[in-house]
């Protein structure tokens, strides 16, 4: 029953989305309101139908209805309820169902939010979103149907992939990733809609697009950090990033989206980079689809690789259509995108944004080419090669150093023009910060030139960004007599977009410090201990107390009981484990992590004697690891702060002028000239439409 409900909902949803896409596109072209109205209803109907299908699947999973193919693949009666529910995205078919669910929710939200907007941008965008839905629905009705009938009815299933049911972070990482990936289809739809509707020549669409990109970017950032955290907690090698193709696949669109979030400010303020921004949006979406293709088709070998199947061919056709149709459309309309402003001076914040985009693009190209190069080598030489961690570390560290430097220069320089004197005043403190960091890191033993550059430029950027907060708050204090915390809070509240960005910068810096310190100062020891024996690592002594096993409903757990001593005193107990799942002949390592702000002690059970007399433990000491996760959360916080601002801020120009702080250091208020003539002209149009 659930099976039929789910599978028919998907079939009907496919038909309705094909109809809706045509109705919206045709209606927008011919300006026929009846068509537009029915297309819009079709879009809502798709949302309803897909929701029904998704809920049916969740119900089938929870009810252990093994006649449903997907449940028979990933379900098992022994799996705890929590992991049963999240196994919705634990394998290919379910994750595509979840994908289309997120896509239909976002589509409905976009169209509902902008239902009163005039013009044909939103109908075209809705049509594009429905066309994307058509692809995923074809997958679900055809080669990846999760609702196929299983006969005869199996009594039980194998349970989810052991790696995925071994840690609760698996409940967090995939949904965030899908929200990020799928979220990027909204800006893409707006971009295509803007070209098709002709609104591309105005700037209204870019503001709509910016917020959605920021939202999707936020989810993608959170997903990447959650993924790192998960692999740190589950894979047992004490690392969090291995430049694995699938990791890269999520990182590449993140880079292009980051580039867009910066360069879009140049477009909003100056009317430049319109074509470039359009290309970034389209590229970001294409890269999310490419990422999914790489993950799902098994083209590149990866620890995360999912099952292979005919699905790869479908994805390839979809990528081909997306790439050719969208880039050809953008290229064909490129002449309509003219800059509408001029630049006052070469040394200004605008130029820093250009350089920022230059290095982010180089970063993207490096990772993309490195990820795909094994395919090139195989196609041309017939030899399988690897492009892995040593390559990416070597090639991307200089780019990271450059980006950190720009992250400090950007906020320090004013828009339009930076005089020599302003530059000196603004860049002196960050330079002092960089020099101090350089000396300190050299003294504590950093010798690699790249690591030194990263620490120094990190300090440079930190000083510059913190100064923005301090100066701004100090100015408020003087102007309004507010006490420091209130001044800081009001400063951020009144300039959310700008200070949200700076908060995100601080998060990135914290993240960078964590990554730099934990990889540079990592120490590691491995030893086989009998009961009662100890090994030393750093200031800790590790004593093996016992090796024992216990049975849990869905798995067998083998654990080492370990006491941690410091200066001969007990400071804690840890239990590194191996979990054995019935579906896998490899145990899943389950390291124990003792996390403190200063660093982690990471214990992995490598091996044990069958009689329980000894165990081999790998102990890793990594400083500042929690800073990585906290940094990621601060980036998300920055994005949230920034999302709260926007339209209102553009309207409150006087408030910003009032806040404008220390003399000479002018975080240039939005004077009408910098908005560009075009935006003023359109302002009436757009604000009226909203």
């Amino acid at each position, binding site marked *: 029953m659930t099976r039929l409900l789910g599978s028919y909902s998907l079939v009907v949803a496919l038909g309705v989305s094909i109809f809706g896409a045509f109705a919206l596109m045709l209606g927008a072209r011919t300006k026929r309101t009846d068509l537009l109205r029915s297309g819009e209803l079709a879009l809502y109907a798709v949302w309803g139908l897909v929701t029904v299908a998704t809920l049916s699947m969740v119900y089938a999973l929870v009810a252990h209805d093994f006649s449903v193919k997907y449940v028979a693949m990933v379900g098992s009666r022994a799996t705890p309820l929590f992991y049963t529910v999240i196994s919705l995205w634990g394998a290919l078919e379910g994750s595509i169902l979840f994908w289309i669910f997120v896509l239909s929710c976002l589509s409905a939200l976009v169209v509902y939010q902008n239902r009163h907007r005039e013009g044909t941008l939103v109908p075209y965008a809705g049509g594009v979103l429905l066309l994307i839905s058509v692809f995923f629905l074809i997958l679900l009705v055809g080669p990846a149907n999760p609702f196929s009938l299983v006969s005869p009815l199996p009594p039980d299933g194998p349970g989810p992939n052991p790696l995925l049911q071994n840690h609760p972070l698996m409940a967090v990482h995939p949904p965030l990733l899908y929200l990020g990936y799928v979220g990027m289809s909204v800006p893409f739809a707006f971009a295509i809609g803007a070209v098709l509707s002709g609104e591309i020549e105005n700037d209204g669409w870019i503001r709509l697009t910016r917020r959605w990109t920021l939202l999707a970017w936020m989810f993608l950032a959170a997903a990447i950090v959650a993924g790192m955290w998960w692999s740190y907690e589950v894979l047992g090698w004490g690392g969090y990033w291995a430049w694995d193709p699938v990791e890269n696949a999520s990182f590449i669109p993140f880079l292009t989206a980051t580039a867009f979030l910066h360069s879009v400010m140049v477009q909003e303020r100056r009317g430049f980079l319109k074509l470039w921004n359009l290309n970034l949006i389209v590229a970001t979406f294409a890269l999310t689809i490419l990422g999914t293709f790489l993950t799902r088709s098994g083209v590149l070998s990866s620890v995360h690789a999912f099952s292979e199947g005919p699905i790869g061919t479908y994805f390839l056709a979809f990528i081909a259509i997306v790439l050719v149709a969208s880039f050809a459309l953008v290229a064909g309309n490129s002449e309509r995108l003219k800059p509408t402003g001029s630049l006052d001076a070469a040394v200004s914040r605008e130029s820093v944004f250009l350089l920022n*985009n230059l290095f982010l693009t180089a970063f993207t190209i490096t990772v993309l080419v490195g990820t795909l190069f094994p395919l*090139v080598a195989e196609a041309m030489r017939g030899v399988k090669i690897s492009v892995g961690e040593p*390559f990416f570390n070597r090639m991307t560290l200089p780019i990271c150093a450059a980006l950190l430097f720009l992250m400090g220069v950007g906020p320090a320089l004013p828009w339009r023009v930076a005089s020599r004197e302003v530059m000196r005043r603004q860049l002196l403190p960050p330079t002092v910060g960089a020099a101090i960091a350089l000396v300190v890191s050299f003294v504590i033993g950093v010798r690699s030139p790249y690591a030194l550059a990263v620490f120094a430029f990190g300090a440079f950027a930190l000083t510059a960004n913190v100064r923005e907060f301090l100066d701004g708050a100090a100015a408020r204090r003087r102007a309004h007599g507010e006490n420091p915390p209130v001044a800081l809070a009001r400063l951020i509240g009144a300039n959310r977009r700008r200070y949200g960005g700076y908060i995100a910068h601080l998060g990135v810096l914290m993240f960078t410090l964590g990554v730099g310190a934990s990889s540079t100062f990592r120490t590691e020891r491995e030893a086989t201990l009998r009961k009662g024996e100890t090994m030393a690592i750093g200031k800790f002594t590790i004593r093996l107390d016992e090796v024992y096993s216990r049975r849990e409903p869905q798995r067998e757990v083998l654990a080492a009981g370990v006491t941690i001593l410091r200066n001969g005193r007990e400071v804690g107990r840890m239990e590194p484990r191996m979990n054995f799942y019935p579906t896998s002949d490899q145990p899943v390592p389950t390291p124990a992590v003792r996390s403190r702000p200063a660093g982690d002690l990471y214990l992995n059970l490598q091996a044990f004697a069958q009689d329980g007399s000894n165990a081999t433990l790998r102990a890793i000491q990594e400083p500042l690891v929690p800073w990585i996760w906290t940094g990621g959360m601060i980036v998300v916080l920055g994005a949230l702060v920034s999302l709260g601002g926007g339209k209102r801020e553009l309207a409150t120009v006087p408030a910003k002028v009032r806040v404008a702080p220390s003399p000479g250091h002018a975080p240039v208020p939005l004077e009408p000239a910098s908005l560009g003539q075009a935006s003023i002209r359109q302002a009436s149009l757009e604000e009226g439409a909203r």
Partner: protein
Amino acid sequence: MMRILTVLTAAAVVLASHPLSAQTPAQRAPAAQPDSALEAMTTRLASELRCPVCQGNSIQDSPSELAQQMRDVIRDQLRSGKTPDEVRAYFVDKYGEWILLAPRAEGLNLIVYLVPFAAVLLGGLVVWRTVRKWTAAPPSSTADTPPG
């Protein structure tokens, strides 16, 4: 249930057969740090070689058994006087170029090393020209050029 037990025993056997489990920690400890230069080179080479059983990690990072034994092979070969290049060549002979995590910078592989530099240089040129055009010319006649 039966299957779980089979797998559990099977896996336990693998783990129990760990070559180190035969040694006492007393023997192991001095072996771990006799020659810091040798250890440093072993670690370096191990981070450059891809673990055959886990596919993504280096044999330095991989917790797998084969990776551990391959680290021992590296250490023994270095100790017997082989140069790092000879050790790399040994593994390439056995596993193919696939085992090198950073491809050799030669022939076709140069593409992957040169493309990032080319991107920065060409992009830098475009940015420079764009900024000059924007600051110099009246905006209406200039085309919008992407910076990378």
